[in-house]
């Protein structure tokens, strides 16, 4: 197995949508954005949806450059995020879906 080469081919890659359940919407938004920026992920879209009692959801569209598993692991580790999953395949619009289990 070779070492993955990190070249910026993201714009040609398919896109993926991540769905995050959040505890603190602003905190989650700032941390998720910082995480994407720190790891040079290409952000394609982001929407933040309110939920009951301080809970909320973030829908994050990113280019799928083969690092999604790692990105999810990193997002799940954020204390502001209480659930993270791959939402659905390429091309999907950022519309509300059923909430993620915390």
């Amino acid at each position, binding site marked *: *197995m*070779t*070492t*993955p*080469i990190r070249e910026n081919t993201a714009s040609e890659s398919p896109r993926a949508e991540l769905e995050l359940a959040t*505890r603190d919407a602003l*905190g989650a938004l*700032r*941390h998720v954005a*910082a995480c994407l920026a*720190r790891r040079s992920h290409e952000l394609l879209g982001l929407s933040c949806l309110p939920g009951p009692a301080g809970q909320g959801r973030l829908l994050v569209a990113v280019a799928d450059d083969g*690092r999604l*598993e*790692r*990105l999810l*692991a*990193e*997002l*799940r*580790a*954020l*204390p502001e*995020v*209480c*659930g*993270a999953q791959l939402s659905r395949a390429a091309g999907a619009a950022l519309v509300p879906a059923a909430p993620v289990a*915390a």
Partner: protein
Amino acid sequence: MTRTTGARLIADSLVRHGIKAVAGIPGGANLPLFDAISQTPTRIVLARHEQGAGFIAQGMARVTGQAQVCLATSGPGVMNLLTAIADAKADSVPLVCLAGQVPRALMGTDAFQEVDVYGLTIPIAKHNVLARRAADLPRIMEEAFAIAVSGRPGPVVVDVPRDVQTEEFDFTSWPAPRLGSGPAESPGTPGPADLAFAASLLARCERPVLYCGGGARGAGAEIAVLAELLDAPVVTTLMGLGLLPPGHPRLAGMIGMHGAPAANHLLTRCDMLVAVGARFDDRATGDAKRFCPGASVIHIDIDPSEHGKNRAAHVPLAGDAVRTLGALIPLVPARARPAWTAIRASLGLAHPYALPGLDDPKSPYGVLAAAAEILGPEAVVATDVGQNQMRAAQAWPCHAPGKFLTSGGLGTMGFGLPAAIGAALADPSQPVACVTGDGGLLMNVQELATLAELGLPVKILLMDNGVLGLVRQQQALFVGGRYTASTFAARPDFVALAASFGIAAIDLEPCRDARAALAAVLAAPGPALARIPVDPDAHVYPMVPPGAANHEMILEKRHDHAHS
């Protein structure tokens, strides 16, 4: 139910978490907090710069393995703390950093000494939180301590507006901390299928190497068992020093930019790399594409986001090193690998590794060897950054994890002195060596005052070469010998400097019996500084040039440019 204030609640939580000492500097925005802590058994250590406070707390945390606490006031206070926070993140050191903030009504108005602590610390802390109400503090403090030590440890920043510190509320109980949802916070052991797959690869491999970093800290015994079963050598990173004691038959030394040649060569030849609590940092791997090129990789790490970051793993195992190895070991068949043993022996002969001047206590390596021998295997050493650090990593015999404190991930000059003070605070019963350079000592020199005040047995071994040695070495080797901005034209009299703080100091340069002089310094009670003159053109070898593969390390004693 008791009536209390935010500040008192925080002070109580420090006591509750066994915090014996905190380091910090007061200011307008954290006066209530200092006042509250002063009324508890927790000792307040007044640092002379917040970066010093951060590294003092780090020193305590690196030695004890427990979260420790530093404090800074709003604005400039917390700005000064940032480097120590980033340093703790890079080396996975558990810290709770308590920042004062302007009162809530002033937040967002560009008030006097207001900075966005939350925003500033997002990329450099493991977790950060702004306390909006005193009543939230029981949960915030429980979570801060839990998050700092759980999973992969790291720094947590709690930003507390002044009026939240003084706000009264009814305290009922300490809530159970709510942690992140990821396995990094609540790691189990990897699944049986992954463990079985890893074991099958291990059974089949012919040339295995165990590559261990700071995350293997508690797993020395398990590492030794696995190495025995596999008949494999163990190499460590800078952060993994002390995992196995010197002379351990399985220990093959430190790898990386200034690692042992035979250890670096072993990696090129291995067909199976078991990485334990190591993150394939570029200083350890050299050119990543040529690091263990033919090897399958089993990567054990408590932080699953490390898997596949710098190197794809055939088997990523997410979990605590001790428990994961404990589950893996029973599945691994013991097998001697005589062909690999023979290759290792021949690599050892082909790449011998002797540090120059080990028997001369006036030489940089010799003084380290002498000090380590005089202080004994229990001693803690804190290093600064530069040639002094790399020489210490090469020469200091490290007998256990938590005894070699160094800024590995961030490489922060100025780390050594305050970290040594922290280590001595954690255990004042035995001397702590501080190996530092003339550049790095000046970066937190103000902490000599803190040290003098505390009277702790920190023994500063100052490698005085009049230059930013490691920078000069790179300029000699890779910048055509043009020494730009790396030579100190003005050189302080360090002995007089230490004396001016009330610290005993000696210059080893004129000493006839340097070893005896050193022994006297190390044996005397309280702090001391010993100056060791070092040749500015003495390079640290071996050295892997930046961007080169580890096996392409430079070994020659002097480079042409060094004389120009």
